[in-house]
């Protein structure tokens, strides 16, 4: 599979980019054959991953860093990857959010992988219509 090249976008990690990127990913996944409830769940998972980057990747009062979105796959098996170049996963006091986002993401995806490397940011990959990462 994966004869269709991935689609990808980059944008500042700001609240106002979340919707645009979410809709872009949803449209790209639909073009790759995902539909129905799986497509709804992909949309939700992408929004959670992007929101996590907006809230946690970069310092709250500093300029927003970049977030990158990639959609790959075909024939109804789709993988979405959201990556940033921020501070990675860390224990934070006064976190902005309920801590629900990544849990929701993991519960709706068929496949979920969260990778953080110190100093290099965080990468969240979710798969739909597949069990092993598409």
């Amino acid at each position, binding site marked *: 599979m994966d004869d269709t090249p991935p*689609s*990808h*976008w980059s*944008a500042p990690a700001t*609240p*106002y980019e*979340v*919707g*645009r*990127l*979410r*809709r*872009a990913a*949803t*449209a790209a996944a639909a073009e790759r054959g995902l539909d129905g409830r799986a497509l*709804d769940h992909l*949309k*939700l998972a992408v*929004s*959670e991953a992007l*929101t996590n980057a*907006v*809230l946690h990747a970069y310092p709250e009062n500093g300029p927003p860093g970049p977030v990158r979105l990639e959609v790959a796959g075909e024939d109804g098996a789709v993988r979405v990857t959201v990556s940033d170049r921020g501070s990675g996963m860390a224990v934070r006091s006064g976190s902005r*959010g*309920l801590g*629900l*986002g990544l849990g*929701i993401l993991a*519960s*709706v995806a068929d496949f979920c992988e969260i990778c953080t490397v110190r100093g290099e940011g965080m990468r969240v990959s979710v798969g739909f219509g597949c069990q092993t990462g598409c």
Partner: protein
Amino acid sequence: MALPQPDRFNLSDAAFTCELRRGDRVAEIVLGGEVDIAARPPLDNVLHEALGTDSPDALVVDLTAVTFADSSTLHWLTEVKREADAAGARLTVTTAPGAVRDLLGITGMKPHLSD
């Protein structure tokens, strides 16, 4: 790759809408479209407006026209519940089958949001 053009993906269906209605001792916040982290500032404003004047006995949050919601929406709803309790207003959250009800089911939060 450039982002898709808005008309290609029907952004008009995704537009977030927010309206405050007032009745006899009741305030109703009616939301529509896609509700995510970008909606938080207007949501906070309408909540303060709903509870900040006339101290309603009841607050209704109508989500039946919301087409998409995520944990940002849930975070706001917990604030609504906290502030309604503090103001002594009875809270009712209404939903329709679809994205919001699915999200409340996934997270098990529905019983915690309405009185």
